[in-house]
């Protein structure tokens, strides 16, 4: 028993998926992501919870899903919840993950909205959120640095990342055409190293 388990951890460099999470676990994970993200930084929290903590997705799957979710219509993180929920538990999983992500935050937002409509402003909340927003921005930058570090050893990936950054942030080009060009280039770059069907673990 011990020798088998130690051998599998040695040979599997990627995260080995355990049993698929229950619908309750999916809802709980996305509720955690939603509640932690006051001030913003949802993607960074999703990366932390889904990849680092629960190990439901490996880094590449998470990152590519993030861009695919942005390309499809609908809010990114809701799409990510549908993706993760569907992957493990089909329709019930998708419903549970989306419910986890939106039900409690909607209730919180309505309470805040009601206070806003009643008192016209939310000064203390406003000040608190200003601090949280500054830290949430840091959360996203830190996530970028974390997931970007492996690219330092990979000139091709570095060029793709830089091109995407310059196109969207510096040139202000819209996302869809940028990914329509860089996506295929990335696939071409990754193709030689992609495992052939049946050879993957």
């Amino acid at each position, binding site marked *: 028993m011990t020798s088998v388990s130690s051998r599998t951890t040695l040979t599997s460099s990627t995260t080995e998926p355990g049993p698929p999470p229950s619908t309750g676990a999916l809802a709980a994970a996305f509720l955690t992501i939603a509640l932690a993200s006051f001030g913003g930084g949802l993607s960074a*929290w999703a990366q932390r919870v889904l990849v680092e903590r629960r190990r439901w997705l490996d880094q590449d799957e998470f990152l*590519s899903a993030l861009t695919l979710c942005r390309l499809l*219509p609908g809010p*990114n993180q809701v799409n990510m919840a549908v993706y993760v929920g569907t992957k493990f538990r089909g329709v019930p999983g*998708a419903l549970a993950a989306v419910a986890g992500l939106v039900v409690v935050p*909607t209730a919180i937002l*309505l309470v805040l909205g009601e206070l806003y409509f009643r008192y016209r402003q939310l000064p203390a909340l406003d000040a608190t959120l200003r*601090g949280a927003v500054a830290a949430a921005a840091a959360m996203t930058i830190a996530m970028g640095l974390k997931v970007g570090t492996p690219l330092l050893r990979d000139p091709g990936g570095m060029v*793709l990342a830089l091109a995407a950054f310059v196109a969207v942030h510096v040139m202000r080009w819209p996302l869809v055409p940028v990914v329509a060009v860089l996506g295929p280039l990335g696939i071409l770059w990754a193709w030689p190293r992609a495992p052939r*069907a049946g050879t993957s673990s």
Partner: protein
Amino acid sequence: MAACAARRDVVVTENPLVRLVILFGSLSLVSLGGGNTVLPAMHREAVDAQHWLTDRQFADLFALAQAAPGPSSLIVSLIGFAAAGIVGAAVATVAMLLPSGVLVYAACRGWEHLRESRWRPAIEHGLAPVTVGLVFASALTVTQAADHHVGAYLVTAIATVVLVMTRINPLVVMAIAAALGLLGVI
């Protein structure tokens, strides 16, 4: 009664719940490339056409939805709430999430079919670096939009270093930053 009749002249037959379903049900499917692309359309309907909100309220509620926990697209719940109370909030939220959700679900099913194909790892490896660039782009956009003066930039910079260099729970960092905001430092 008179107010009710007066309003009826402006909005001819439409029940606000029906307007919410039409508005968000259609925006749901065109909100490509992230939610903010449909914000102008929401503004046009909620402020200019239906007068559910004033211009100022719309801007305030958008800031609230962005900073509150959860997806910022939940501003649709607040618009629904302003239009028709709690029921309006629920109707607006479901109308916004259901059509795109069904489409994404179908896409995910197709994507799962590719699991055995060589295309799947190639797409995943190939899109990962592009995403890294996009994450940096959003991070800087958010920072520039949120941080209006030196104090805020300093908090973002210090928090970034702390988050990268240490294993402190990010919630602790967020809480400290929120406290600094409350104390008026930022």
